[in-house]
Every structure is written in C-alpha cells, then in structure tokens.
C-alpha cells in the first residue's frame, strides 16, 4: 500500500478494509506473538463496531469490484486469524479468539455468517466438549455460542438447522450448570438463548434440564443476578414443549413447593387452617398432586434443607413465579389466580408476631431469623401481585375486591420504607388499570396514608396543621373500618423515597379519579400538595442526582411538582385554589435549564395554558369559505355563530365577544320569540362574564358543562323569568314528558333560591321526588353512601 494512497475521509468505504488489515497486523497476535494488553482488544472491537469493519456492505457496482475483493480478503484474513487463535493452546489467546469471534457473529454479513456458521460452531463446541480448563474460556465460549444462536435465530428459514445445532449443546450446557462452579453463568445464558430461539431442541432433555435448574436454584448458593437468570431459564423451559399444560404444570409445581416450604417456615406463626386451605386450592381433593418440582421430593425440599435455606428458597421460588407470569409464552395459558393470591395473602399476613391463640412453638432465635427474612418475602409477594395485575388486566375483575382488601389492609400495617414504596407503586398500577371504579375504593386509604407519610416528619420544619390533619384522617378510617383498628403510624422518620412514592400515588389518584365523589377530600389533598411542593422548592432547586438508585431532594421536588400539576389539572368545580402559586413554582422550575425538572415545568405550563384559556375549537376553520347550508325547516343554521362564540370563549376576548353577541341578535330573535327576554339575557350575560373572572362563589354542587361561575344576585334577579318560562313551556308543550319537566322546574325555582340558574335539574331534592314516582331498589341517595 502506497504511503500516500490517502482515503477521502473517515466515511470512505476504502478505509474499512485497510483499517481492518492494520488492526490484524498490529493488535491481533499470530502463532508466535504473545497477547498484548487485553485493553487493546476492546479498542479493536469498538473500532469494528463504529466503522462496521466486518459488514462488507458496499454497493455492487463495477467500480467497487476491486474494493469488494479487498474487503473480502481482509475479512477472510480476520476470520482465519481468529480461528487460529481459537485453536491455540495458550488460554489467553484462545480466550481472545473466542471473544472476537463472538463479536464477528454479530457484525459480519449474513452471507458470510450462513456460509460458515457451522464451522465456527464446531470450533467453539470443541471447547465445551470436553470442557476447557480455563474458566474464562468456558464462559466466553458459552457467550459466543449464545450470540451465534441469536444471530441464527434471526433467519426464519434456519429453524431446523439451528435446532439440530442447539441440541448438540444441551448436554454439555446442563453439565456445566450442574457442576458446582461459577462457570454456570455463561451456561445459563446460553440455555436461555437456546430456549428463546430453538426451544424444541430441549424437548428430549426436559426433565433433566428442570432438575438441573432447580437443583442449582435451591442448592447453588447463587448471587441474585444468577438467581434471576436461573428463574428466567426455568420459566422459559415449558417453551420447549410449547403447550398450555406444561406451563400450568410448572407453575403448579412451583406454587406447591412454595407452600410446602411455607408450611415449614411459618409453623407457629399462622393458623393451621390456613395451611390446609391453600394446599386444597392447589391440589383439589381427589386429584393427584403433580410430580415434585425438579424431581426434588417434599423431603428434599423441606427436611433436608435447614431452616435458613428454606426461607431463601421460598423467595427464589416466588421469583420464579413472577418471572413465569411475565415471560411471554407461545400459546395462551391459564393463570391460577386464586392459588397465587392465596400464597401472597399468606405471606403478607405473617408479620412475625405470634398468634395469641397459640402456644408458642418456636424459639426466639427462630423468630428472629424469620423476622430478618420476612421483608424479602413480602417484597416478592408484592412483586407477584404487580405481575398478576399487569398480565391479567381486566380479567382480574372477579378477584379485584380480594386484592383491594389485601392491599389496603397491608397498607395500614406496612412500615418498612422499601415495602411501602413497592406498595405505592402497586396502588398506582391498580388505579391505572381499573380507573374510576378503583378510585371509589382506594381513595380514602391512599389519601390518609399518603398524607401521613408526607406530613408526619416534615423535613423543613413542621407546622401545626399536619398534626390536625392526621388526627382527622385517623378518625375517618376508624369510623369507616370498625373491624380493624390498625392505623398506620410511622415510628421513624419517613425517608424521601417513600414520600416520592406517596406523591406518585396521589398524582395517579388525581389523574384517574380526581372528579368523582371527591368533594370530601379534594380540598384537603390540593392543600397538602401545594404545601408539600412549596416546602420542597422553597430553598432553591436541588441539583439532579447522578445516582439512579438513591432518590435525591431533586427527585422529591420533581415528584411534588408532578403531583401539584395533577391537582391543578384534575377536574374540579371552580378555579384551582392554588393556581397562582402553582404557576409561580412552574415558572421558577423552568429556569433550571437542562434538568428534568425544567422539562417537566415547561410541560406543566403548556398543560395549564388550556386551563387558563379554555378552548372549544370549532370543527371547521372559520377562515375557509365553505358555505353552510340553511336548513329546510327554516331553522337558522347556527354553526357559524357557534364557531365565533367558541373562539370568543377565551377570557381575554371581552370585546370580540360583545361583537359576536350583537351580530347574532337577529339570529336570536328568530329562535326566541320573546324579544324582551332576549335583551335581558344579553345584559345579564355580560354582567356574568365580567364578574365571573373576579368572583368565585361557594360551590353549590351543581353541574355545569363549561364552568362559568354565577353570581347570586344575578340569579335572583332572573329567577322570576325562569319560572315563568318553565311553566309556560310545561303547559304549551303538552305530553307526559313536558309535564314532568315543567313540574320539576317549579320545584327548583321554589326551593333553591339562587346560585343555580344554568342547569337546574338533577340535584338531590328532585331526585328524591323522581324516585317516589318510580320505585327503586333501595331508597338510599346515590351520593350519600360514602358519608
């Protein structure tokens, strides 16, 4: 290569083969050379990835022919060199070769891959069968093979070949997993890949695979990461048969194993009846229990393992449960919701206390140990609940009441920050999944708990008000729930992370059901949220945390602002009381350029803009010259009017609005025969529109579609006219329908007094009257059941 044969720039394709060659020459050792610094290898790999040195992707033109040749030979050289390294007897060179080959599987062109993957496969297989000496070589070999199969799985027409190749791997991989060493890491990963792409290759070895995985899970003393992978393996295993029964059997086996272990560990902590009940739910009387999980008998699972082992095993198996629920499966499967819920309930109900009715059967030391392990079990139980809700969605309806009771009950007792955070997350999900129906159920509990969490230890100096509020809520609960007197009262300082979770739950509550029957709590919650937000933000904006895991003050600020936005936007009956303060906070936050908080504040201001300038945009662009038809029966078309009006809705458009009105006067005359009324109407309306912006009268609980606040005097002034019209209508219209309507209007005019003149129907008085006419199931006012 000539010294001055320059390439155009760094994007030039001609650069690639040259770069590759020079890498091979300088950095990849040949037979004689030693492997240099391994860091150099990672440099090579990163260069290969950035420049796509192995892709061989060139346009097939005549000019490029030479280049293609060049590149092809360079890659040939690369592959040859790697294969040489792979068969080297020096472990480090062999390792380097295997790793680089793994990268090649991912990077090389499809043609090259399909042409030579079986050669590569054989080369790598020779290091697993018999297994190589070096740990590094074994692991990297498994990982590379996993990448090879991943790539192969991407070709839809290679399924058969892939399966036959993968089948060769099964035995050595299972052997690696069984061996008590850390080699299993790569092997488990490889097994997952096999199960993902070529599951049928494991069909013959199903039982031995199950045994190997379960043994490793139970006795392997694996680290959490490894446990997760093993659990994934186990949940993917039914794929190898691919039918519904295998999956159901597997989860049944796992649940059975969990329950057997629980029987053992919770002895003396729960009633005996619970135990037999759960077992009955799993194995209905008269049916044979399934073969034990992984061939481990009851004896293996419980007696042989010491107590310590068995509790960790429960959590491991629970992890398997939730992985099974979340891992996708090729056919539709039936999830045994009831047994799952029973396990969850069983675990959540045990808090380490000894039942009073029983003579203590376990020693203090045993209790101590169980207490240290319980939080883990609880955490996994909540996880399973989450997964059930996520996967079953609307099908959960028959069980939801059960879940709600479970969750609210636990919410009152749970004190550990980590678990509370999980619990709030779970509640958020429940609210999202079941919307309005769920808020009716959960609002009370969520609000009381969240306000305790947010109030009890205010970091920036407490105020007198929180204590009062707490008391009030406690009363509310005990009034509602006579049967259980447990009330959540944190003994320690509530960490920021819990507060963030509580804010999240409140935010979701407001988002989903802020309007429904919220009269009793909305104002309290709104006040709480503005106080939390102002307190969080009053000492300036915190720096964003670099650490993802430990939430910082900045995260708390963000969470409080999010909740505040929900409280401002959630539908209410009058202007949000803290709109001005909220806007101020968001404006301030937006200055913090480059942070998530600023981003959110910008979004908040945009959302609030609609609240300040309500839009009822016309269907049609008024500017366009479309002619709108006049209706046949003489009714004037009022679409245009409506459009103009809608654009005039904005508060600022006072003058344009008047113009619109005056233009329409003649239209109105045709609609409303009584000209006098018309004039009066216009004047009152102007009065209302001016006063509405400054005056927020007390909320009367009446429905208005577009919120306009009325002024009582105006209403009184017009009351007479209203009744007159209503009566006139009732008489002139005739027929049963009009009669009823007319009568009810009179009632309104008589009893209500003022404040309500826009839509007068549907308040409680009238509803009662109507209920007398039509017999009802139970004569309780629909609105008053919660009070």
């Amino acid at each position, binding site marked *: 290569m000539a010294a001055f044969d320059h390439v155009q720039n760094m994007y030039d394709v001609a650069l690639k083969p040259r770069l590759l060659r020079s890498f091979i020459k300088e950095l990849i050792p040949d037979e004689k050379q030693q492997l240099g610094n391994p860091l150099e290898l990672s440099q090579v790999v990163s260069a290969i990835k950035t420049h796509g040195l192995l892709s061989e992707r060139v346009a097939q033109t005549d000019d490029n022919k030479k280049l293609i040749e060049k590149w092809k030979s360079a890659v040939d050289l690369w592959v040859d060199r790697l294969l040489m390294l792979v068969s080297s007897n020096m472990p480090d060179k062999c390792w380097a070769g295997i790793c680089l080959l793994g990268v090649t599987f991912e990077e090389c062109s499809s043609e090259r891959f399909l042409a030579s993957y079986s050669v590569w496969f054989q080369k790598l297989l020779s290091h697993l069968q018999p297994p190589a000496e070096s740990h590094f070589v074994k692991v990297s070999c498994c990982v590379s093979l996993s990448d090879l199969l991943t790539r192969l799985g991407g070709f839809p027409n290679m399924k058969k070949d892939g399966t036959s190749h993968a089948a060769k791997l099964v035995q050595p991989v299972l052997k690696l997993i069984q061996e008590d060493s850390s080699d299993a890491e790569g092997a488990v990963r490889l097994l997952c890949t096999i199960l993902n792409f070529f599951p049928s290759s494991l069909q013959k070895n199903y039982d031995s695979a199950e045994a190997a995985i379960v043994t490793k899970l139970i006795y392997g003393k694996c680290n959490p990461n490894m446990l997760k992978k093993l659990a994934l393996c186990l949940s993917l295993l039914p794929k190898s048969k691919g039918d519904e029964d295998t999956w159901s059997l597997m989860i049944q086996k796992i649940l059975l194993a969990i329950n057997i272990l629980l029987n053992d560990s919770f002895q003396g902590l729960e009633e005996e009846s619970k135990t037999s009940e759960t077992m009955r739910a799993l194995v209905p009387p008269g049916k044979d229990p399934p073969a034990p999980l992984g061939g481990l008998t009851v004896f293996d699972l419980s007696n042989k393992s010491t107590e310590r082992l068995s509790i960790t095993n429960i959590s491991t198996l629970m992890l398997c449960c939730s992985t099974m629920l979340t891992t996708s499966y090729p056919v539709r499967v039936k999830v045994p919701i009831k047994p799952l819920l029973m396990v969850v309930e069983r675990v959540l109900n045990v808090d380490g206390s000894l039942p009073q009715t029983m003579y203590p059967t376990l020693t203090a030391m045993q209790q101590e140990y169980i207490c240290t392990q319980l939080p883990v079990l609880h955490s996994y139980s909540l996880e399973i609940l989450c997964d059930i809700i996520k996967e079953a969605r609307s099908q959960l309806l028959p069980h939801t009441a059960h879940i709600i009771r479970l969750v609210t009950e636990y919410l009152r007792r749970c004190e550990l920050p980590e678990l509370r955070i999980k619990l709030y997350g779970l509640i958020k999900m429940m609210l999202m999944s079941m919307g309005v129906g769920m808020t009716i159920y959960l609002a009370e509990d969520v609000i009381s708990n969240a306000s305790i969490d947010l109030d009890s230890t205010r970091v920036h100096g407490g105020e007198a008000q929180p204590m009062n509020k707490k008391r009030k809520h406690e009363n509310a609960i005990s009034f509602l729930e006579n049967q259980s007197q447990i009330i959540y009262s944190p003994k320690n300082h509530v960490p920021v992370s819990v507060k963030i979770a509580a804010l999240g739950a409140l935010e979701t509550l407001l988002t989903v059901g802020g309007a429904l029957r919220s009269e009793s709590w909305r104002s309290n919650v709104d006040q709480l949220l503005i106080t939390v937000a102002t307190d969080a933000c009053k000492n300036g904006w915190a720096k964003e945390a670099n650490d993802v895991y430990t939430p910082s003050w900045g995260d708390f600020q963000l969470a409080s602002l999010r909740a505040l936005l929900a409280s401002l936007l959630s539908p209410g009956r009058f202007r949000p009381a803290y709109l001005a303060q909220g806007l101020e906070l968001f404006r301030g936050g937006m200055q913090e350029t480059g942070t998530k908080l600023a981003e959110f504040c910008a979004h908040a201001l945009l959302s609030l803009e609609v609240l300040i300038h309500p839009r009822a945009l016309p269907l049609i662009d008024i500017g366009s010259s479309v002619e709108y038809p006049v209706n046949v029966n003489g009714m004037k078309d009022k679409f245009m009017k409506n459009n103009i009006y809608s654009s005039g809705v904005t508060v600022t458009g006072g003058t344009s609005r008047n113009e619109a009105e005056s233009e329409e006067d003649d239209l109105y005359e045709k609609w409303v025969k009584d000209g006098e009324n018309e004039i009066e109407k216009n004047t009152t309306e102007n009065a209302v529109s001016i006063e509405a912006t400054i005056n927020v009268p007390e909320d009367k609980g009446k*429905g208005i579609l577009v919120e306009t606040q009325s002024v009582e005097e105006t209403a009184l002034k017009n009351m007479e006219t209203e009744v007159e019209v209503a009566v006139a209508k009732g008489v002139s219209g005739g027929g049963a329908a009009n009669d009823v309507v007319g009568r009810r209007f009179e009632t309104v005019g008589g009893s209500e007094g003022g404040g309500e003149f826009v839509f007068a129907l549907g308040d409680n008085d009238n509803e009662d009257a109507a209920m007398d006419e039509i017999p009802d199931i139970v004569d309780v006012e629909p609105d008053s059941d919660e009070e």
Partner: protein
Amino acid sequence: MEDEVVIASSSIEAGIGCWGLRSGAEHLRYRSCASPPHGLVSVAGRFLASSQLRDSSSSSGSVLFWSWNKPQVEVKSFPAEAINPLACNSDGTYIVGGGVSGHIYLWEVATGRLLKKWHGHYRPVTCLVFSNDQSLLISGSEDGTVRVWSLLMIFDEEGQQRAGHLYEYSFTGHALPVTDIVTGYGGSNAIILSSSLDRTCKVWSLARGTLLRNIVFPSIIDAVALDPGEHVFYAGGRDGKIYIAELNAQTTSNNNNNNNYGLHIIGTLSDQSKAICSLGFALDGFQLVVGSEDGMVRVWDTKTRNIIRVFKHAKGPVNNIVVMRQPAALYPRTAGNNNNQGPMGRRHVALPPPLEKYSSIDEHSELNAFITPRSNSYDATTYTTLQSMNNQINELQQHGSSGASEMELERLKLDCKRSMQMVQQWKKMYQNLNQFCVGELLNGEGDETNLML
C-alpha cells in the same frame, strides 16, 4: 392505509352487512341475524356477536357469534331470557347483556361462564355501554332510568352490603324508555348522554351524578353520537333528521332558555329520508355513519354536511351500526403480505364456547385469567459477547479474580514449559558446539601436526 369497516344489522332478518368505509366495497355478509337495537358488538375486533330478536313464544334468548371469515353462524348461545342490548369491554374479556326482565348478565368470553347476573331495572334493559376506562357500565331501560354500575362493586359482595345498593348512580330524569346512551372522554369527569322516547336528550355528569343539560327535540330521538371533540352531539330523530346540538356553548347558559323548544340545537343534517335508527362515528371523527329505517346506511361528512357514501343494507331498518378498524381477517389474501400479518394474521381464530344459560360458578370453581401470547421478537435479540468480554478484560486488568489469575497461571506454566524446552535446546546446542569444538580442536591438532610435518 388501514381501512375501517362499517358493520350494520337490522331488525328484520337481513344478515350483517360489512363494508369498507373508504373503499366502499362490501365484504362478507354474515347470515341469519335479526338484532334488536344495540344488539351488535365486535368483541375486541376478534369476532362479531349479536343478540337476536325472537318470537315471544320461546322462553330463552339467543346470542350468536360469527367469525370474520365465515358467513355462517359459528357459535349459538341461549341465555335464560331474551337479550336486547349487548356490550363488550375493550379487551374483549366480558360480554354484558341486558334482558327483557331487567336483569343484566355478565359473561366471561374465554370460558362462556356466566359470572354475574343482577337485577338492574324494572323494565327491559334497552342499552348498555362501558365507560371509557372500562371500569363502569352504564345501562338504560324502558323504565326511563339510566344507571351507572361499578364493575368492581358488582363482584364485591362485602362492598355491596356496606353500600346498600349495587349501582353508583341512578338517573331518573326520563319519563319514557331510554333509547340510546353514549359516554364521552374525561375519565372520572366524563359526561353521559342519554336519549329517550320522551323527545329529550339529557347530559349527565359522571363526577357529580347530576343532570347537566336537558335538550328537547321536535321528534323522538332513537340514536345519539358524540362528536370526538365533544363540541356538539348528533341526535337521529324519527322524523329523519339528524339534529346537531351543542354541548359546551356558553351562549345559552342563561336562565331564560333552559327549557326553550329547540334550544341548543344548532342545525340538522337531513336528506328527507326516513327515521334514523342508529349512528356511529368513523375513527377520524368527521364521518358520521347513519343507519336509517329505509334500510340504507349513509355516511355524512360533518364538516361539509354532505352525504359522501351510501350503502344498501336491507329493506328493514338498520338499527345497529358499528364502525371499527378493519380486522386482519378481512384483508384480502395476497402472496405479498402473508408474512407481515403478525400473529393475528391468517390464522383462523377459534371462537370461544357459547355463553352459559345459568351460572355454574360456585365457591370452588376456579376463576382463572389467561395470558395471551405476545410476539417477543423485539426483546430477545441481544448480543452479549461484547459485554461479557469487557467484564473479563476488567477482571484481567485488576488481576483480581480467580479466573484471571488462573489464566495467568496457565500462561506462565506454558511459558515456563517453553522456556524449559528452550533451555534443553540451548543445552543441546551447547553440547553440540562443545563436541564440535572438541572435535575441531582434536582434528585441528591433527591438522596442525600435519602442517608441522
């Protein structure tokens, strides 16, 4: 672009018509269906279900299922009584039916089991709709009531006892049977719009359980449709006109006008046809699909107020209109798109079992959920060599792990072995050299002596 289909059925036995909204082409016509109003649903786009009008002599009702690609009825169910309206939640998990006795039935689609049956009204149920978030059910009845049910409460016996009644709200504003109900957006703040034989439409607030607006029409309204922007709603009258009534206008928020004849009505769509029986909006929110008593389905453009398409369905009234995304099963079979149809594509979807007549649920019956398969082609393809290699390089750099030191050891051993070989070699060479030198020397001496000689 994905097409939408218009599905229509009639009260006389004319089958279910199915047309592409944009293409105008008629797909299959599903046979033998005579449905009551609100009796036709598409169950989450998977199949069609319709309750059937039956002669009064038979005691049981009838609900039929059709799969998309077969004109014949595939599954027949016979509930305990005649079912009028049908509704189905967006997941397609439950089918709800309203009986002539006022009972409401809730079936699980996957198993056909009757999960709940409760007394909803005193007269036949006329319409059933799910709220937007699928957690509430709204029913209307011939007794003029509109009731809102929380599905959670329906299943929660303890909660019922505490509350004293099943429904969340019972609206008793209509004096005559309710003909149609629609509900709008807004979650807990949504509105419910009901129409009735008493010539009114009423707007109810879900959040407060109150009447927001009462609109009196010159004719009986049999069908209503809500503009997606909830700016106006469309009410189909028996006089053949579609009235446009405004929802959010403040102009009329005045005490004088509350009961004025024709108030809030801002226009009509009319082509002098017969009574309007059903309405439905296309997904774009502009095209209004109208089923009429004369057996025609007309598509109006609400922007220009013109009829843009007419489908001929039957001689009888078109009392059900469903507009939905075209289900995958209705796409024509072509060689090209067989692969990219996804899991729902060509495969024939087996229909669920028929709906139960009487509930078989007791304490011991399992109530399971089903997880349907999802395509996992996105999350599985991750390559791990690079990550694993970098981890190992890290270990090597730190010389910390046993693996790294083991490899180092191995390498040193081999190095050592090679060095030993080298030593051997050198030794041998030295010996050779030595021998050679000695030989040379001896020979040289000989030579020298020769020379000397």
